[in-house]
């Protein structure tokens, strides 16, 4: 079974063979990219629109590069959500895009479910590039690819996802993907940054880094936004770093060959210490970026073939 959906809106609901298919295909694109070759005929004549309602240089660039390496015409649209009525902009934009006959639509939005709403209104295949605090599917795929290449498998690994799980779409997508593929997932963070009933997602919940990281194969750090401190969810950056920031001492309780990951951009000295982030043997943060392009090529390739559309 290959990938059966028209869109990629969420990891939740995907079956292991669908995830496996995307990862296998991405694997081949890693090799292609490293050899310096391109496949510019694959998406020739197809239009890819990067529709970003939220700033994100790295995700947008990654999709842009992926689209161009496959030969698509790539257009970047940044829409300010503050200037106009938000909902109006979203649906007006959908109507405009439909008139342009775009084939692949990559959407980033600060509201959970916005890509689902767009997917109902446009003919293009919609790829969720991060929606509110809901999901960020390609980030989870690139994380999984990074892990699989380093560890040879996903099944049975202990993965600790640490920090602001409550507001993290990266955490949600990773939880769904890793539990679906048989990893043991832990979430670690202060109770104020932990979503209600998180354990119902099939994870173990910890509020203590030492216990949460004990014996972990992978330590995945999440970004803590300054805004969380303004809203009183954590008292201060220094207190957060003391108890939940990843430094060498906390990392030491994980397995000796444990890897550290971060979706970026990092707040050094808040959720992660530079000594750990820059450790050439243990940190795979830069490799994640490389995998990002390959994974997005695999997603664009798969969705442009329109498997989902042909099966109905």
């Amino acid at each position, binding site marked *: 079974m290959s990938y059966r959906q028209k869109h990629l809106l969420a990891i939740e609901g995907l079956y292991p063979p669908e995830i496996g298919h995307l990862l296998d295909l991405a694997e081949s694109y890693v090799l292609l990219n490293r050899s310096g070759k391109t496949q510019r005929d694959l998406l020739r004549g197809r239009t890819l629109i990067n529709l970003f309602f939220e700033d994100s240089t790295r995700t947008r660039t990654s999709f842009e590069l992926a689209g161009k390496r496959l030969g698509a015409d790539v257009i970047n649209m940044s829409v300010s959500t503050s200037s106009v009525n938000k*909902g109006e902009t979203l649906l007006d934009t959908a109507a405009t895009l439909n008139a342009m006959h775009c084939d692949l639509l990559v959407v980033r939005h600060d*509201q*959970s*479910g*916005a890509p689902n709403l767009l997917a109902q209104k446009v003919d293009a295949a919609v790829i969720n590039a991060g929606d509110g*605090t809901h999901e960020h599917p390609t980030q989870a795929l690139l994380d999984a690819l990074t892990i699989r290449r380093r560890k040879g498998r996903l099944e049975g690994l202990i993965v600790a996802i640490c920090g602001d799980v409550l507001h993290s779409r990266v955490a*949600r997508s990773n939880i769904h993907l890793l539990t679906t593929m048989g990893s043991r997932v832990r979430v670690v963070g202060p109770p104020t940054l932990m979503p*209600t009933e*998180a354990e119902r*997602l099939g994870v173990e919940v910890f509020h203590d880094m030492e216990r949460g990281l004990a014996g972990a194969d992978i330590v995945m750090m999440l970004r803590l936004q300054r805004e969380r401190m303004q809203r009183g969810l954590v008292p201060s950056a220094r207190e957060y770093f003391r108890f939940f920031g990843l430094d060498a001492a906390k990392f030491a309780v994980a397995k000796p060959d444990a890897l550290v990951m971060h979706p970026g951009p990092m707040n050094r000295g808040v959720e992660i210490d530079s000594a750990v982030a820059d450790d050439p043997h243990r940190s795979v943060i830069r490799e994640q970026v490389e995998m990002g392009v390959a994974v997005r090529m695999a997603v664009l390739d798969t969705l442009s073939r329109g498997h989902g559309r042909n099966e109905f």
Partner: protein
Amino acid sequence: MRDVLFSFVRLLDPVSGLDLHGDLLLRDGRIADFGPSLGRPDDAAVVAEQGGVLCPGLVDMRAALGEPGYEYRETIASAAEAAAAGGITTLAALPDTLPAIDDPALVRLLRARGDETGSLTILPYGAVTVGCRGEELAELGLLAEAGAIAFTDGSRALGSARLMRLALSYAKGFGARIVQHPEEPSLADGGAATEGELATRLGLPGIPAAAEVILVARDIQLAALTGGAVHFAHVSTAEALQLIRQAKADGINVTCDTAPPYFDLNETAIGDFRTYAKLSPPLRKDADRLAVVAALADGTIDAIASDHQPRDADDKRQPFAQATPGGTGLATLLSITLAQVHSGAISLGQAIELLTARPARLLGVEAGRIGKGLPADLCLFHPERIWQVEAGRLPGKAQNTPFDGRALEGVVLGTWKAGRRVFG
């Protein structure tokens, strides 16, 4: 006006002890007579419906109208059309309009606008606070004198305990009730769904069930403190209902209603970000829904209100957290309630009481009863006939039903207001 004879229907008004198969005669806008067999006056128009049930016109104690200020969502005329199709002949209208109903002239205006429809008595709520802003008390005495039936800030909770205490205390002097939207504002702020597994999965900001429980607990204490009368609108959680049950047993002057979504739907209705199921308070877990059903059955809940909140397409075609909460409820009020009768949770008599005499008594109005000489506000329905709810094809302007696609048993066949047929 020609006489109307309902011939061999089931006459049902449980509070009056009426449940018989027979005839009922309307003359000059009033109920002239009823009984097992009335014979047939020469010039009467005869209404005969095999299996039909004739009950008092429904009394909906909580509905928002688009007028004044939000006519793009709903006008009084369109709300009256939907109400008539739902068997509703008396409706209490929320005051958080634009402008808010915080002036005696606006109370009189709403009453008059209701009379103009010819099909619907509108009972205006007065605002508790000026502009429903929750800052200073409105002129409750003057509003009551102008015909405000009770006081509420509508969909906005009275968050300040001090202000709630003042309102309960002051309104008591005028024999008026304070109707609360029970949701602690600082806990509910920014929330879009009930906090829990589903909100976590969807990445939506949550509102804990405790937001309702806390305000109910607080206001029960304030009602006890002041001796004032508090009514909790659209109660949706098991724990709040338990507190209300206990407060009633303790003799505190507390009443409550709920609305069809809270005993018919649970939070899963918002799956895949369905904004038509985004309501305030949010749909709850199924255990809470079952507790609402139990509270209907044991009498803890005093009334079922439509909690009608008209919205237009643009209010709802938004990312979930930005969509405006609220659902239409006039046309579906009776049928959704009857689903609880068909499932055996409550009797048909209980259902009709909760939709007619009990809310009327609570509001202190003479409505919701069948009796000789009373105004002929009546609803004729068939409890088993089926129909399907379809957004876009509902009567009235507002189409934002959370029940879209539902097949329902129970069809309103006709509605009479003061003896005149206004629907069917």
